[in-house]
């Protein structure tokens, strides 16, 4: 599984990255985490409000910092 965090470096994006790391550690699943700050790539996903969260190439959330629990649920649902 691969999780991408889309963001151009705003504080909320860093916050989301932290939460994702915690969530991954909690879930115990092997996940590859990647931070995407390249604007062209972000636009390619059709995301305009950062931070965005992408799991295996599918946009699951835009424009907000999810809680650790929400991310864990998204990981499990996948």
């Amino acid at each position, binding site marked *: 599984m691969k999780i991408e965090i889309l963001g*151009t470096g*705003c504080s*909320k994006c860093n916050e989301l990255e932290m939460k994702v790391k915690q969530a991954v550690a909690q879930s115990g699943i092997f996940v590859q985490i990647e931070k995407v700050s390249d*604007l*062209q790539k*972000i*636009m*390619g*996903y*059709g*995301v*305009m*409000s*950062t931070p965005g969260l992408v799991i295996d190439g599918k*946009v*699951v*959330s*835009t*424009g*907000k910092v999810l809680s650790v629990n*929400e991310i864990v649920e998204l990981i499990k649902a996948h």
Partner: protein
Amino acid sequence: MWQEFSGTIILQWLGFSGKLGEALHFFLYDTIKIWFLLLSIIFAVSFLRTWFNTEKVRAYLAGKREFTGNILAALFGIITPFCTCSAIPLFLGFLQARIPIGVTFSFLISAPLNNEIAIAMLFGLFGWKITAIYIGFGLFVAILGGWVIGRFNVEKYVLISVPPLSGDIEIPTYRPKFSERLNDAWGNTRDIFHKIYLWVMVGVGVGAWFHGYVPAEFIAQYAGGSAWYTVPVAVLMGIPMYSSAAGVMPLVEVLTQKGMLLGSALSFMMAVTALSLPEAIILKQILHIRLIALFFAIITAGIMGIGFIFNTIL
């Protein structure tokens, strides 16, 4: 009710009197009132906004005709959450969906102008009538400004190539539960309140001092008056005050009570919210300085026009 109670606390229980008592009473009353209104209005707006996001707005605006598009974009600007930090992805994202550049600007003018803090402060300080006037004229400036920018050939001033969308515009399908929406709205309200509650105190504090100590004639002489230059001066003063709407608006309230004309006050408040230097600096990365200058010039002209009209009518 709260006004009387605040008076009782300051004047009777704490025993202040005279001008100092009056200023303290005003300070306590206004600070608590505005805090309360800020919390409730920002919560309500944030809650409503959990149903909207920029991706949905873009999908809806794509393919709309220009003038209709301007109107819709300005309206969406009220209800869509917007942060200066995401101005670039938003701008490029709209172009990517082939939304005309003028329509994009209508959104970019309306969104910061009608932000939740400004709406909450206006409602708390001036009541619903002035709030409605502010929003109405804000929409007018956004619609007309965006439309005018669209009349110039400005596409060449976008300095970055817009990547084509792969496939259709995809909207994230995740639908939050009601409780999650409430949680999100409360989290957002807390964040915003944390950022501005001190500014409110500073603004009300200075306002209280004005209220108690500065005579009305003094203000009428410098900020009141119907001289033609009050409106441009008000707009110029508003530009560097971006994002301090929470601190500035209590001052404006006192100034209007003491004789500042409402048109100048409206121009000033719109300049504070709509002419944002941080946004200009961020957009500078992808737009030619000429387009940004045009963008600022048109908003400035619109805001001043509103000030002049109001000062003349009222």
